[in-house]
């Protein structure tokens, strides 16, 4: 399969069958969490992470929105779970490069490389980055917004 088609297929799979997506979190107090909005189109994600000894031991999200926003959220949870804060920050930074067409460390990623195509659609940048950006601000210490 052509690379673009494969990417498309993987993203569609994550969109239709998302990983680590929940409709609500009961034990909120065990998590750091933060909500983010993409005001132009109504994308909305709320990300929950559990930090133990500076490692992200659990990560979940509640979300609704476009295919790119939702699939990126699903892939983000897979890419960042069990990573240390430093590793997560490094991945987030590289993912930002990946979707903006800047050289990045390709060895860091699995499914996330499917988002390379976003670089040609700057209007969709926010959709792809919103959940990653939220984790970045959570590990920095912003929460409960």
């Amino acid at each position: 399969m052509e690379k673009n088609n494969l990417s498309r297929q993987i993203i569609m799979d994550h969109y239709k069958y998302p990983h680590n997506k929940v409709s609500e979190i009961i034990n909120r107090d065990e998590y750091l969490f933060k909500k983010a909005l993409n005001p132009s189109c109504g994308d909305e994600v709320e990300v929950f992470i559990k930090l133990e000894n500076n490692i992200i031991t659990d990560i979940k999200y509640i979300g609704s929105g476009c295919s790119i926003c939702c699939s990126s959220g699903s892939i983000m949870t897979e890419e960042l779970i069990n990573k240390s804060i430093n590793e997560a920050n490094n991945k987030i930074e590289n993912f930002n490069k990946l979707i903006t067409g800047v050289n990045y460390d390709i060895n860091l990623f699995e499914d996330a490389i499917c988002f390379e195509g976003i670089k040609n659609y700057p209007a969709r940048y926010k959709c792809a980055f919103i959940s990653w950006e939220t984790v970045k601000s959570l590990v920095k210490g912003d929460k409960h917004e």
Partner: protein
Amino acid sequence: MINPNKIKNDFSMFKNNPSLKYLDSAATSLTPDIVVEQINDYYKKYRSSINRGTSKMANDVSRKYEGSRKTIANHFNTDPSEIIFTKSTTTSINNISKSIIHLIKPNSNIVVTNMEHHSNFLPWQVLCHENNIELRVVKANHLEIKSKDVIDMIDENTLIVCIHHVSNIIGNTVDLSEISVKTNDLDVMLLVDGAQAAPHKKVDLKKINCDFYTVSAHKMCGPTGLGVLYINNRVVNKLKAFDYGGDMVTPSSVTYESFLQKSSPNKFEAGTPSIAEVLAFGVSIDYLNKIGMDQIENHEIKLKKYAINKLSKLDYVKIYNSNNNSGLIAFNINGVSVHDAMSESFISDITFDSEDIIIRDGQMCNNLTMKYVLKEKALLRASIYIYNDKNDIDMLVSQISKIYNVWR
């Protein structure tokens, strides 16, 4: 009866974009060539200021400018002194909100509704916050504002009632007649946001009997950057001027200590106005009247019925406003986010955009209706105007089904 194909010939946009299906006139309409030519003529043939200098050309332009005001006043059945030119509906409403601050008393309240465009809500929310007075929000009932619910909110302490004439998402028309009886009885000011009404139906300001009525030229075949604000002569003396400067003052009256304001409309038009736009908008109004406002309204209602009939056969399309008489169709496609439907990405190149079908997505600058009335995060809106025909609708419907098939 309107013949959209003939009307399309009046708009170069269609010649330059042969596959354009323009269904976004509620955001901004297209502009017929004669209006654009009027703008050109002003810049190319008789460029000068108005009401300043005494050259023959300046006098001619001043006369044309006032002629345009008269055309617009006639169209809305009011006096030219009550027609004020501003930048937009947004500017008009903000200006009014600032010109009545001195009338606020500690127990004043302001009545608005939860179906207002942000431009007819935020200025009032800010005014109420800053002056610590009550903002009363009338809630929609079955997707529309009932005049009785508005009337129930008004009392002798109400400073102003601010309400849409036609709403910008649902397209329902508010029955203003009983509201204005009540505001007049209690000597309460009434502001009507006519941005979505004036382009589509005959508006008779004598009949409506409000104090302020706002219109955006760019939504009715006019230029961008021009608003028309009707100010009923009976309230002019209560209001502060919007701006101070040239042309709103009697020049010889200016001293170190004081000055004398002119009467309306000059009182509210300080500075060099948008001359080209005012001249052009006079041409737009003539153009619309040649077609006929009643014809325009009928055409939109008929074409919307045609669209609803087709759309209601697609069980995956949710329509929010099937039944009202307007040219607005607010809808969603089940399981497809508006963003995916609208804008192309590497995941799907089957979108409205890919077929040059221009509609609007998102919250339409009206988050109150989205959040409290429809309880949706986003939706799609197709809006019909004089140049739209059955083919535009057929293309819209067929693209909806193609988009659905990508994502289902």
